Each structure stands twice: as structure tokens, then as C-alpha cells.
């Protein structure tokens, strides 16, 4: 099943939970199969990821309704107070594993609309046009979100890994 890996990866980054991601991907394949969302053009991967994204949004809404307490909106404010307690100390921050975990955490802490464009661009190697189709925003918005995501990641990375040499001039 080509694109299953990409669909699962994307769902996991959207939902930030493995089991939720599984459900979302399963639902997405069902919808793809039933043809709820007609495939236009030939970009099958983009089409499938769009369905994954819709399924995630639906699942999130259902969760919120069940919880009866509205979850906070994913905005920059919330994530500026993202967990920093587990920040590794500078001594061990240089190990590759810690770098990986830090990167994982920093990307997870990005607001969803920034995180998704960044991952679609860097992990799935999709073009602006394809990303715009999946995320349903104009290409200009894709560009600005991508720029903000990358800039935020750089700033946070420098904050978290003080041992690393800063921009060499």
C-alpha cells in the first residue's frame, strides 16, 4: 500500500498520538475507498493526505464535543509555554539522541498550521502548490507559514542547544 507510510506519518504528526493516528488513517483509507472525496488530477499522495487531514479535523471535533470542555486553540501563545522542564542539560545536549528528541519536541510544539506545511515540505518533499491543495490555503499563505515555521524552529533550537556554535560570522 504505497502512501500508507506517508499517511501514517502525517496523521501521527497531526494528532501527536500513535493510536489516534491509526484510527485517522484507517478512516481516511475507508473514505478514499468509498470515494467520498473524489480524486481530481493525478496527485494521489496529496489527495490521500488531504483526506487524512480532514479525518483528523473531524476526529478532533468529536473529541472536543465528548470532552464537553473546549480544548484550547492551538496558537502560538499556548506553545510558547510548551514544556521546557525536560530540556536536557548542556552537557548531554550534544548527543545525537538528545538532538533527535529535541527536534521532535520542538516540531511537535509548533502550531499545527505551521507544523503541517513544514513537514509536507521537508519530509514529504511536496511543492507549494501541492501543500496548498492539502491544507486548503493560498500558496502565499503556504510560503509565509513555512517561513514562520522555519524561523521559529531556528530560534527555539538555538535556545535549547546553547552548546552549539551560533551563526558563524
Amino acid at each position, binding site marked *: 500500500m*504505497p502512501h500508507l507510510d506517508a499517511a*501514517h506519518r502525517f496523521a501521527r504528526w497531526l494528532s501527536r498520538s500513535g493510536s489516534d493516528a491509526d484510527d485517522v488513517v484507517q478512516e481516511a483509507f475507508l473514505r478514499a475507498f468509498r470515494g467520498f472525496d473524489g*480524486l481530481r488530477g493525478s496527485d494521489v499522495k496529496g489527495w490521500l493526505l488531504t483526506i487524512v487531514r480532514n479525518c483528523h479535523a473531524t476526529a478532533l471535533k468529536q473529541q472536543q464535543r465528548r470532552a464537553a470542555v473546549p480544548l484550547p486553540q492551538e496558537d502560538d501563545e499556548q506553545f510558547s509555554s510548551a514544556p521546557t522542564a525536560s530540556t536536557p542539560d548542556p552537557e548531554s545536549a550534544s548527543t545525537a539522541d538528545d*538532538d533527535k528528541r529535541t*527536534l521532535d519536541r520542538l*516540531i511537535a510544539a509548533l502550531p499545527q498550521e505551521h507544523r503541517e506545511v*513544514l513537514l509536507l515540505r521537508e519530509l514529504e518533499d511536496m511543492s*507549494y502548490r501541492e501543500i496548498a491543495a492539502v491544507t486548503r490555503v493560498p500558496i502565499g499563505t503556504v510560503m509565509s507559514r513555512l517561513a514562520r515555521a*522555519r524561523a521559529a524552529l531556528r530560534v527555539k533550537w538555538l535556545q535549547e542547544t546553547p552548546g552549539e556554535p551560533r551563526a558563524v560570522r
Partner: protein
Amino acid sequence: MQCAEHYRVQAYFDGEVDAVSAVDIERHAERCAECRALLEHLASTRERIRRDLEFGAAPPQLRARIMRMLDQEAGVGDPRGAARRPTLWRNRPFWLGAGGGVGAALAASLLFSLLSPSLSLPGPLLDEVVAAHVRSLMPEHLTDVVSTDRHTVKPWFAGHADVSPVVADFAGQGYRLVGGRADYFDHQRAAVVVYEHGPHFINVFTWVASERTFPDLTTRSGYHVASWRVGNLQYCAVSDAGWDEVLALVRLLRDAGERDQR
């Protein structure tokens, strides 16, 4: 304060600008230290993400779950399914509604082939083999005769298939003989020997070779298909296991075949 060109520099980095603009932006970056630093940052971020972020494959249980779901969706267990299996699905995009009586495996393989970038590969026979493999992985379809003993499996074929394939147990090498099955395709009863390798099943199909050519190694709908001929017998191993694992079994089978002939 950010250089006004930074969006264009980013677009250049992402390969989104034409050649003329690219030259223009490169010239700008030569003069603008800020944009040079931006390019370096973009490159290092990409490198870090592609190197360190998990590219993990979807869990096999999820894959199996989705197969089962598509299975149910297409109405497996509907006895009419098998009878109404014809080539309807080939002409009809599934989003127009492929459910109902279309055989599950075929519906599923239709989905897979749609999702597969290699649509243009030749060979409807190849489709049949992969569809048969997918069908075999559905509950209760894997084997007709369950045995790890080749002396049980091999004679069983005599009454059920048109060919007598090489059957051997390679448990020692990690390929456990699970059993045999007869599948009807290419207008004959093909013999299928099933091996288990770790979490993967490998179906080895054998039938009397026709004139139709078959690519040696190919990937269809994400399944690896390795085929070879011994005399007038066509062998074909299909699995979602990696190439190395499939080819190792092919080697074992070819060696065993040569021993049998001596």
C-alpha cells in the same frame, strides 16, 4: 528586520522559482549577508529534519487492519463475490462506487493499484498474481492444505493443481513452509506454496508458462514480485517482505529445484 527578499530566497531554496529568477536571487544573496545566512539556515534545518526525524513505516497491524476493513467494505463473505469477480473493476474508477459484489481482493488491489505510481507497467497477469497474493492474506484464504511437511504438500497438488512445483521447507534458513493452495488464474490451476518469513508471508505461484512475458523483478502495488522459469514452469514469488528476503527464498528454491532434477 528581515531582508525584503527573504520569501524569494526561500522559494529559490525550495526549487519554486524559474531559472531567470534563480540567477537573480543568487546574485542578490552574493551581496546580502542576511540572505546568505538564511540559505545556510534553511539547508541545515532541512538536513536535520531529514536526518533525525522519524521516517518510520506504518505499523504492520495497521496495514492488516486496513486490509481487513477494505475486505469487509467490499463485501467479502458474500458468496456472490467470487462469481461476480470479472473485469468490471478494471474499467470503473472505484470512487464511482466499487463496493457491492466486486470481490474484495480485487477491490482492494484496485485501490492499491490506483495508489501505485507504477500504473503503466505491462501485464494483466501481474495484476492477477498480486491480487491472488492479497486475497490469500485475507482470513482463511492462505492455505488449502496446512503442513510443514513437503511430503504432504507436494502430493496434495497432484489432485488439485495442474503442475507439480518444487516444495521444500527452509525453516533452517528462516523460511517456514506453511502449506499449499490452488489458485485459478491464467486459465489453469496454479499451485501456490506458502512460506512464512518473520512477519511476512511469501506466496510462490507455479503454473505452466505461457508465451506471455513476465518481468523478472518488479514491484506492483507495493508488493515485490520475483519471477523465474524452470523448464516450462513459471515460478513467481510475491510478498511484502523486502527484496533481499524475497530473493533469498528464490535462490533457495532454485537450488532445491536443481537438486530435484538430479
